[in-house]
């Protein structure tokens, strides 16, 4: 299969070489192949236990881990919306709107870094950033930790799982991370096909797969078991339309520039999300975002870091047209150029993308234990 893949790729390269300006970079055929997804890595300092996972599950759904006790992890990572949020920009904390699309939690366990520009190095670090950000959970450690102490079931669980005399907020994030490592999907039609179940993909999906690995060259970045190289590219996603239409989105846009510590000159004139630049402060990183996984995408529309594309067909058409335009054109990836797919090929490719998703993952929302007064130790 690997050999065939290479041959297809070479013919795709031959096609695009005829186009002006850019040729495919050398070594493009070294991409790791698509592969079935195994078990997620478990960090040595946060092993999985059933009790910890169950605690994490409750905390994931508990809005008391947020500023005004209204916004849980599950508010923006809603299982009914693909464990993300079905709008271009995530809903954000009350009184705000977020500025990026909410990513699915499904299979987040496999990512080396979290968030659209890899700002968190682990799920344990992603959770507090989300719970505390002003346009996300807007919580503070002291209030959130204090609240946990007044829920007897949590006191008991933190003591049993972590040995905490009183629940420590840092351990809440560890428990949530453990729960998230159970939200995985390893038996999609594609997984089954790659494990040898040939009928798991339809004829159309197989044609789509050939395009994916060949003419459309998706495999260049969407490769390996997670269908992502976890690298950063500017593919020309246009700015979010809501920055022009929605006052709350305009407020948050400026807030993000301010909070991320850009220069005043950039703060004044930037009108798009500079992506990886906020982490590295290197001009060549402007407009770059991490390649997202294609797994579970059947349920996670809209797509791209700002939700600019509303269904998978739009996504394929976007690439087929050679990407879009944003104000960081100087960093546009040379891999992005018109693909020359016809309508049938677009349909085939979309059909194949659907094979990256199995059935929807749903669960019963846990019943959350109530606050109780703390007994006075002097009595």
């Amino acid at each position, binding site marked *: 299969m690997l050999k065939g893949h290479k041959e297809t790729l070479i013919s795709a390269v031959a096609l695009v070489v005829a186009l002006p300006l850019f040729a495919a970079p050398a070594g493009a055929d070294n991409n790791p192949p698509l592969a079935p997804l195994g078990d997620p890595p478990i960090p040595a300092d946060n092993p999985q236990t059933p009790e910890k996972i169950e605690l994490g599950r409750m905390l994931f759904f508990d809005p008391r881990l947020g500023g005004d*006790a209204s916004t849980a992890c599950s508010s923006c990572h809603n299982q009914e919306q693909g464990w993300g949020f079905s709008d271009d920009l995530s809903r954000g904390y009350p*009184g705000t709107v977020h500025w990026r699309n909410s990513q699915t939690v499904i299979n987040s366990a496999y990512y080396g870094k979290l968030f659209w520009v890899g700002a968190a190095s682990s799920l344990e670090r992603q959770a507090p950033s989300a719970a505390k950000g002003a346009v996300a959970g*807007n919580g503070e450690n002291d209030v959130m*930790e204090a609240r946990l102490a007044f829920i007897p079931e949590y006191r008991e669980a933190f003591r049993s799982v972590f040995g905490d005399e009183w629940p420590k907020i840092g351990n809440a994030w560890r428990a949530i991370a453990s729960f998230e490592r159970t939200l995985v999907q390893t038996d999609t039609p594609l997984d089954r096909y790659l494990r040898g179940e040939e009928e798991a993909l339809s004829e159309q999906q197989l044609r789509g797969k050939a395009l994916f690995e060949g003419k459309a060259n998706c495999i260049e970045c969407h490769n390996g078991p997670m269908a992502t190289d976890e690298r950063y590219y500017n593919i020309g996603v246009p700015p979010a339309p809501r920055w022009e239409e929605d006052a709350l989105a*305009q*407020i948050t846009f400026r807030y993000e520039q301010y909070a991320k510590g850009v220069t005043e000159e950039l703060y004044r004139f930037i009108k798009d999300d500079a992506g990886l630049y906020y982490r590295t402060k290197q001009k060549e990183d402007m407009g770059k975002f991490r390649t997202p996984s294609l797994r579970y995408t059947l349920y996670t529309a809209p797509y791209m870091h700002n939700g600019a594309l509303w269904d998978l067909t739009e996504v394929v058409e976007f690439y087929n047209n050679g990407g879009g335009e944003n104000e960081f054109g100087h960093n546009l990836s040379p891999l992005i150029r018109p693909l020359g797919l016809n309508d049938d090929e677009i349909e085939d490719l979309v059909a194949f993308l659907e094979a990256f998703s199995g059935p929807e993952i749903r669960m019963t929302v846990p019943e959350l234990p109530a606050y109780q007064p*703390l007994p006075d130790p002097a009595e």
Partner: protein
Amino acid sequence: MIRIEFRGLLKIGVTAAVGMMAALVPGAAEDFGPVPQIETNAAQVELGRRLFFDKRLSGDAAISCASCHDPARGFADGLPLSAAYPGSLGFRNTPTLINTAHRAAWFHDGRLGSNLNDVTREMITEDYMMNMDMRLMQERFKQDPVYVEMFEAAGYGEPSNGGARKAIPEFLKTLISRNSAFDRGELSPSEQSGFTIFAGVAGCGTCHSGPRFTDDRVYNTGVPDNPEIWRNPMRHTTFVAYAMFMGIENFMNIRRDPGAHVRGHAADGSDVGTFLTPTLRELTHTGPYMHNGVFATLEEVIDFYDAGGGDDPNKDRRLMPLGLSKQQRTDLVAFLRALSGDPLTGPEFVWQDPIPTEYDVIDDWRETPN
């Protein structure tokens, strides 16, 4: 990061407060004059007044300064314990903001002794108060054309956190007691008798001195605990968050508000349970009383002092049973009521126009510098 800044300021604040206190030696009866008015900048006051009533200054845009500091309730809230930010409830009584600009230290524990700029920041950013990231607040202001004009008119340039932290104190400077019977010199015989007792045998004037009837110092009078704080997890969690942040030892096990111990941290604990002397101005508008709202009426307060205060190992030794007669107690209450002036509820104190809860879109966004 806001917190770190606060820690640094606290030290400076305490030093400044101590300096000011030295000048505020308990005054004689003739020192209890009207509270001096403060000169202000009209445009800055106007901006501060709008900000004060604007709910968009809180994290989830649910509460404004005026939610707890209600002009109709003497810029307090009429509750024993304050409401706080949604998701939390307070563990102390909301103090009046009338005459607050003359104070030497703020909050019942006096933990800020610098200026109202700091107090404003503390209230807006504290997670159980308004829970606002001020960077986001600034961008909300910039989205409101009315603020863009008002900040400019106030001389603050474009809308900013710094401007807001100046304008709100400027507005607070206008909240000065006026026209009480005491200030007009029109005390009834009973009120006059109450004043004599106040400044004389009852010794109230020892601490409740000066035009605001407070020396801005802290004392332990043995005010009884308010068990509601510990009974209600929504309040107790707030106390724990506060105690954790203020570096109070053993905070999960204590069931008593340590008060100004947070600013002195006396090693022998002798400052535990001390609280700032509150002003006696505007009491008719600002009950319930004490740092924890444990007394609903002024009669209860007078009875408390008549009995020599409460029960506390650190209680100030000067508090002794007073042995006041019923008439003396009645006169004292009458005098205290005579220290309340006109309610500050006119348009110069209350923002009149509706404040939008939504924002205008910047239409030519791409061409407008941020």
